[in-house]
């Protein structure tokens, strides 16, 4: 089970955002992206998630068993800046929809929605419309979405935006759990998140500096 990025580069319009980024993440490993605003963290995550076509290089997923070639995007959960939840629907309807629509990848099962909501400590507000929730609660529920369907790779773009410290600790714990179960995590953050990143990559705009070990 490996997520491989091979000499990735990406353009935004005419400008090259980053080039020649390679990594190779195995089971239970994490890559933490840091860097100033506009250095290309989100772009790199979106390239890995298959939402932006890379200008060069490729992203590849090698499954554990001899399964037919799957796109890397299909094994990923992507938590972007936006929560991907409908404000008109209740939290339970939102989570239920994603649970049914995403389905489970082989090698794991998602938690029932009650359990996922308990995991982010918001089990009691499943009946409320998503739009009634505070920004922090919405973010937590968006995170619960990662738990309702099993994906080996989590791509997290600023997961802790709008969160208090206790919720940050909660997210870090869930990320550690995911890694302990053999999951792979790619995260971009400003706030230090309390989990043990195997690799760190500091994005510095065009000329990037690789701080990782053994990449």
């Amino acid at each position, binding site marked *: 089970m490996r997520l491989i990025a091979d000499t990735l580069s990406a353009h935004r319009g005419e400008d090259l955002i980053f080039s020649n980024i390679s990594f190779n993440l195995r089971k239970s490993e994490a890559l933490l992206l840091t860097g100033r605003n506009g250095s290309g963290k989100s772009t790199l995550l*979106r390239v890995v998630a298959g939402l932006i076509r890379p200008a060069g290089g490729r992203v590849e997923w090698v499954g554990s068993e001899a399964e037919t070639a799957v796109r890397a995007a299909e094994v990923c959960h992507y938590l*972007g800046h936006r929560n*991907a*939840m409908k404000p*008109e629907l209740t939290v339970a309807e939102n989570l239920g*929809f994603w649970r049914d629509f*995403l389905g489970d990848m082989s090698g794991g099962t998602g938690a029932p929605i009650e359990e996922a909501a308990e995991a982010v400590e918001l089990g009691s507000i499943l009946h409320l419309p998503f739009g009634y929730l505070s920004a922090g609660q919405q973010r937590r529920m968006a995170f619960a979405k990662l738990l309702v369907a099993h994906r080996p790779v989590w791509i997290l773009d600023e997961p802790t935006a709008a969160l208090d410290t206790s919720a940050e600790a909660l997210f870090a714990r869930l990320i550690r759990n995911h890694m302990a179960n053999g999951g792979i995590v790619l995260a971009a953050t400003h706030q230090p998140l309390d989990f043990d990143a195997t690799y760190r990559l500091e994005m510095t705009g065009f000329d990037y500096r690789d701080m990782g070990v053994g990449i």
Partner: protein
Amino acid sequence: MTALLLRDLKLSVRAGGGALIGVLFFMTVVAVMPFGVGPDLNLLARIGPAIVWIGALLSALLGLDRMFQTEREDGSLDLLLMQEHPLVVTVLVKCIAHWLANVLPLVIASPLLGLFMNMSEVAIGAVMLTLLVGSPALTLIGSVGAAVAVTLPRGGLLVSILVLPLCIPVLIFGVSASYAAVEDPAPFLPPFLILAAITMFFAVLGPVGAALALRNAGD
């Protein structure tokens, strides 16, 4: 996929879904027509099928631009694009949901509006039947426009302008089939079958085009 269909149907009837706005607009457009044309009942009966069709066409375009834009605004579109379900099928399901929620009510309301236009029973039935068969094509063509304009913040009018010329064949065959049902020498079946063919053609081409546009909208 059933989950997506159910969610979209639910969204369209919840606050801000705007499924009934189309019906209200349809009624308004058709209801003002007699005031403009005058109280000539024979004239109204003659132009009735065309007016009802044009009203339905414009109302069907009304909510179209939101089909993918709401998904994009809250980030759901990213997740829809990432899944292993073929994007073409996802788009087709969204089209079906959009048609059921926004366009089917227009078809159901069309007999009432036919009465406004002093149309005969046969003409009303023919218009309803042609709308039922032809209106899915409007949604399917529209999905391509909606996908192309998905990244534009005020894409609504642009979608209509992009889509209207492509809808003209649907309008022509829909209206000519409706007229053929009431005017004797013209046969009803040929234009009606062409209308059905157009719908089936766009059921294949529309989602493919829309999926292609969504894949390349990447930002």
